């Protein structure tokens, strides 16, 4: 079984790197750690980067997870190959760009692009976001799947992810104490459903809600509270159509041995206990490529 430690970073293609930088800093509140001609690396916490934009197709999206060491990486590569998931090892230049010791790339059963990395770098310099969004770190991702049961089996049987809760057949998966690191989301395509950053307090979620509205950023869900993880949340769209989430107060699973996944029905109150409703793509012109948020 492949053991995952944490989510490390996401990589997103963009047609307009300058626009992505403006959004990621002035709106989202991340910090530029490195800007090159065709890439932009951004920080959200102590790590040297947790988000990378590169010149390319916005549908080209990758999420990376950290594994313990080179031996685990090697074993993971062998396991995935054996199961019919072709694996590619990162080149020295690619590792250098990602500031990791080594990585492998593969696709999960839904075609979601994933990387496994060892020794992602931490920066000695404190994270200081471009605006006072009070971001405390990159926390989790939502991943599309056309077959939630198959996707759950892959991540819980090939990998060591565990189900924290389910909404209908949609699983919220954890790889450590945090309630979920992967939120599966129904969708016909491969890629990331949303990218979550934690903020310091509920005040910061609410401040950002007003700030984003003033800036004309499309709000697609919230402010609300997920009954699953307990977090107070806000979802909004980037210019490329990626859904970002601020949230605070994600539960941790304290009793790992005895935790039993709860089953929530597939209905609006399972996504938000306060009563907010996600804006469906047909209702929101800017959300043409976005489906219903996962219960995360």
């Amino acid at each position: 079984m492949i053991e995952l430690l944490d989510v490390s970073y996401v990589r997103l293609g963009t047609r307009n790197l300058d626009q992505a930088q403006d959004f990621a800093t002035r709106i989202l509140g991340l910090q530029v750690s490195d800007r090159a001609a065709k890439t932009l690396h951004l920080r959200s916490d102590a790590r040297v980067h947790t988000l990378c934009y590169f010149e390319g197709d916005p549908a080209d999206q990758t999420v990376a997870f950290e594994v313990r060491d080179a031996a685990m990486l090697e074993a993971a590569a062998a396991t995935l190959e054996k199961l019919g998931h072709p694996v590619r090892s990162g080149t020295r230049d690619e590792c250098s760009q990602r500031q990791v010791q080594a990585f492998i790339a593969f696709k999960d059963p839904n075609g979601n692009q994933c990387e496994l990395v060892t020794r992602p770098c931490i920066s000695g310099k404190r994270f200081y976001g471009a605006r006072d969004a009070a971001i405390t770190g990159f926390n989790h991702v939502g991943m599309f799947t056309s077959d939630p049961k198959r996707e759950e089996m892959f991540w819980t049987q090939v990998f060591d992810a565990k189900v924290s809760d389910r909404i209908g057949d949609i699983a919220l998966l954890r790889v450590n104490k945090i309630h979920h690191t992967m939120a599966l989301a129904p969708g016909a395509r491969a890629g990331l459903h949303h990218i979550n950053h934690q903020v310091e307090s509920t005040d910061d979620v609410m401040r950002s809600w007003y700030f984003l509205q003033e800036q004309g950023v499309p709000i697609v869900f919230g402010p609300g509270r997920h009954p699953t993880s307990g977090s107070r949340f806000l979802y909004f769209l980037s210019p490329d159509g990626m859904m970002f989430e601020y949230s605070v107060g994600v539960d941790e699973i304290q009793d790992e041995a005895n935790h039993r996944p709860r089953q929530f029905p597939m209905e609006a109150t399972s996504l938000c206990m306060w009563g907010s409703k996600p804006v469906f793509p047909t209702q929101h012109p800017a959300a043409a490529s976005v489906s219903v948020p996962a219960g995360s």
Partner: protein
Amino acid sequence: MIDLSRRPTQSMQAVLQHVCVAVDDLNLAADFSHQVLGLPTLHVSTDRLHTRLDSMAWRLGWVDSASSASVGIGLPDDEALDQVIHRLQEAGREVFELAPPVCGSWCVSRAAVAMSPSGQRVDLVVGAQTVATRFRPAIDTGVCGLGPVGLRCADLACDLEFWVDCLGAVVSDRVGEIAYLRFGSRHHDIALYPSTQTGILYATLEVIDFDALMTDWYRLSEAGVAVHHGPGRESASGQRFVRFAGFGDSLLAFGWGMDAGCDVPVRPRQFALDAHSLCTWGSRCTSVVELDPGAVIPGADSRPRLSSIGRKAVSDSFKKVSA
């Protein structure tokens, strides 16, 4: 013998007891209270309804004329009431006691009425009754008590003297000329707002937690009730609030999380008069002139007033709910 040498706050232990808001249509207000707020009303007289918010017999009153709208201050005993009456008379304020049958219908042992310099009616009551049956709203709104009352003050400087010198309130903080006043340890019970008018600006229904506040906000929005300010958080008091249209010129509000432990005397802070001083999250109110720092007070206000837009929004939505 009345001992006036004692400081008012030491002697009186006053509390915010009730608030009575004026509404255009008592029957419609009663239906709204029951069906949207989950708060059944009790007919006290043809022109007056009472509503429970907690273990007390009532906290929120609905009256059919602006002159009957009042804020009620509870005093611990007859001696304290006598002191206040004496102090008010010394200050030249008119004050009169209510007849026993009225006190009976109000579920108090004794009551007097005074007028603030602006002309705001203030009820002074002793012996407000607690009810043994548990309070439980008909809808799960989380309402659990009476929060702060905002008052429009045509003569704020004189009103401030009235509240501090005669009634023993303490200034907690100021935003511009807006003054937050407390009787006990929570940040404020009364907020005085400069205005060209006099009356209740808002009455706050306290709720049990932030979840309840936000759920109530979505519920109001779904019912089509006009929310005029919030969800927000007062910078001075920390209170989270949602202020929405009532059935007259007064707003109603849900509130939670006001700073407590303010009984240690500290120097009141002076906040600048801007939107962020009234809401640290950034909510703005442009439809109620007293809550809009950009509005010029006193002076002509040509924008739609709450009295017109608020009533329409509530009426329209409530017809929908009733249907």
